[in-house]
C-alpha cells in the first residue's frame, strides 16, 4: 500500500508533466527518511530524445527525482495544500551514476538527511533498481518563499 499516492503527491510537489518524477511514496518518516518510486516508461517524454534508438533515463532527471523526493521528505504535513508552495533551488549535487536506467525499470529512491536547517538541507540520496544501486550521492538545496 502506498503511503502517498499520486493525488497526494500532486498536493505536495509543485512540478507537473512532463517534469513530475515521483509516482508513489512507499515509506515516509517526515524529516528522517523517504522511499519513493519512479516508474520509467517508454512513454516518458524525455525518452523520445534521449536517445533515439537507445532509450536511457537521463542522469540529470534521476537527480531531479531525488530532489523531488527530498521536497516531500521535508514538506510539513499540516500545511494545507492550498498554501503557497515555496520555490526550491538546488545548490550542489555530488552524485555518481553506476548503471543505466531503462524503460521498464522501477527506480526506488531513498533520501536521508545529512544536515537540515530552517530553509535548506543537505541530503544523502540513493537510487536503486531491483535492489541494485544505480546512482547515489549528496544533494543540497534551499527553499525560498515564492513571490
Amino acid at each position: 500500500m502506498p503511503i502517498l499516492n499520486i493525488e497526494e503527491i500532486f498536493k505536495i510537489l509543485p512540478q507537473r508533466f512532463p517534469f513530475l518524477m515521483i509516482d508513489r511514496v512507499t515509506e515516509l518518516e517526515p524529516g528522517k527518511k523517504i522511499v519513493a518510486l519512479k516508474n520509467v516508461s517508454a512513454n516518458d517524454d524525455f525518452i523520445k530524445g534521449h536517445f533515439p534508438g537507445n532509450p536511457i533515463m537521463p542522469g540529470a532527471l534521476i537527480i531531479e527525482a531525488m530532489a523531488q523526493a527530498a521536497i516531500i521528505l521535508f514538506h510539513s504535513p499540516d500545511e494545507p495544500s492550498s498554501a503557497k508552495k515555496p520555490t526550491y533551488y538546488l545548490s550542489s549535487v555530488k552524485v555518481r551514476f553506476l548503471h543505466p536506467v531503462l524503460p521498464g525499470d522501477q527506480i526506488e529512491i531513498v533520501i536521508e538527511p545529512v544536515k537540515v536547517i530552517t530553509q535548506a538541507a543537505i541530503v544523502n540520496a540513493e537510487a536503486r533498481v531491483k535492489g541494485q544501486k544505480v546512482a547515489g550521492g549528496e544533494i543540497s538545496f534551499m527553499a525560498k518563499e515564492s513571490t
Partner: protein
Amino acid sequence: MQELESEIKNIIAEILEKDPEEIKPESRFIEDLGMDSMMALEILAAMEKKYKIAIPEEKLAALTNLNATLAIARECLAKKQNAHT
C-alpha cells in the same frame, strides 16, 4: 591543534574551490573567497561529519573567516568531550 587548523582549512578550500594557501586566517569567506550561504552550510556539515560533532544553526552566521570557524569547531569539540566525561 595545528592539525585541526590544517584539516579545517582543507575542508573550506575544497568547498569554496580554492587552494588551501588562499585561506588565510583573516580572509573573509564571503567578500574575499566568494562563499554563499549554501557553501557555509556545506562547510558546517562537513565539519560535523568529520569530527562527529553537532553545530547549531545559529553558528552559521559566525562562519566568517578561518579563525572564527576554528573557534566554533573547538567550542563544539570541547562540548562533545565534556558530554563524555
